[in-house]
């Protein structure tokens, strides 16, 4: 079984992937807490034989849900932008992404 003790480097990578900003102290704390939870989870799940079991993703047997593609009024531009932090000429204004 693979090691489930997370290293600080792994946690730092996850922080980056999750687009979070954590303090050194938080990273320290999460490294041990995440290791504990992951370790518990993996140890428990390893006890269940799933050799011939397919993963389940839909629990009520719903099949593809289709509808006709009909246009209908939605929010107006003003309504959609009502909570935006910054707008410009009716658009969301964001910081530059490409440096």
């Amino acid at each position: 079984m693979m090691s489930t003790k997370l290293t600080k480097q792994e946690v730092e990578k996850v922080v980056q992937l999750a687009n979070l900003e954590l303090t050194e102290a938080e990273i320290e704390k999460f490294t041990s807490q995440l290791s504990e939870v992951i370790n518990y989870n993996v140890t428990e799940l390893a006890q269940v034989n799933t050799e011939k079991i397919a993963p389940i993703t839909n629990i009520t047997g719903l099949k593809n849900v289709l509808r006709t593609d009909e246009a209908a009024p939605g929010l107006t531009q003003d309504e959609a932008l009502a909570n935006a932090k910054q707008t410009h000429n009716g658009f969301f204004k964001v910081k530059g992404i490409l440096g």
Partner: protein
Amino acid sequence: MELTKLTLREADEALKERKISSKELTEAHLLRIAEKDKQLGAYLTLTAELALEQAEKADQRRKNEEVCWLTGVPAAIKDIISTKNVRTTAGSKILEDYTPVYSATAYQRLEDVTTVLLGKTNLDEFAMGASTENSALGKTVNPWDLERVPGGSSGGSAAAVAADLATFALGTDTGGSIRQPASFCNVVGLKPTYGRVSRYGVIAMASSLDQVGPIAKTVEDAALVLNIIAGHDKYDSTSAKKELPDFTKFLGGKVKGMKIGVPKEFFGKGLQAEVKTTVEGALAKLEELGASLIDVSLPTTKEAVAVYYLIMPSEVSANLARYDGIRFGKTRENFGAEVKRRIMLGTYALSAGYYDAYYLKAAKVRRVLFNELQEVFKRVDVIAGPTSPVLPFKFGEKTADPLSMYLADIYTVTANLAGIPAISVPAGFAKGLPVGLQLQANHWEEGKLLKVAHAFEQATGFSKEKPKL
């Protein structure tokens, strides 16, 4: 007549017979909130002005047309359910100043029949927690013991109903968040089948698990609310096009001859002795009422928490990616510790190299669990056991150790993972604290839950007990 004590059914009767007006009923609740909520902290936002407008409209409607039992009845809504033009925070700093431009379908259906909105209730941030201690915006206490937590994540909704600060409330349940606080506060909490109630406009936590449901003073009240909020919604493609029964039709029947499965795994290690004794007493009562208790086994119960704490955070990490500080809300450093922890867990479980071992394995064990339940439901009508393994605990008792908090979800997560309906009904007291009996049924069989829970409630009367405030 003490207006705030009325059940939904009683309030509707009194309104119908013109003994009271919705305005009086609403004012009585606002007054009680002003008196008691400083101490309890159930509400994050009060909507007194809107409530009085709605009450007036409801009184007009009651006078002029055939109306619904909810018309003019004051309700509390968990602050993760969007309410148009009313601040909706999810208990998070990130959405502290967020006012939605549309309403969740579940709330819209209440508004369509002019239910009165008293305000929005406290919760663990983004519904992540089992004590409401993770709210970034306030502390809610348990009306039965002010030093103890009300449960969570719908802690504000459960405390409000228990303390007569609302006639009923809406909550959401992803891993027990309606049932466990209902159990901790001595009220009825119903998590419907996945897909029974639309999730549109409910701020998403884990989309394959989330479900809206009522928190109420009686089983009948829960049925009355479900009658209105349930049903297909074109805005939520996972809401089901199932025939909708009148859920009150299931009440009042005899449970004689019904088969109640008792899984031995629900009475094992980790269950507090006082809870065990109380729930065993409840089971004996059901037997006395003529139901047969049948020993069953759900061997994967123990692993359910592990499945849940991989599937749920994985969905959380995807759902909460939208809080990027651009379209709404503040930037991501405003997330609280538990939210960050779950985003991290999920991001890790889904990341390259780990997906198969974690997420996929959990999705397989989820099927094993599902299959076990389907086998059991071939033999029994409902499954019974405790809602929570522990009595309401003190503030800070479990916050230092996330895993111990997670393990307290052991009896509730199964219903979410399998998508089945479950209810918590008051089952008595231990050390002066409420204990809940949990019943679970197969998909779309809320009727069986309501029938058994109602018979139990009528025979015992525990839901009539009120906290001294």
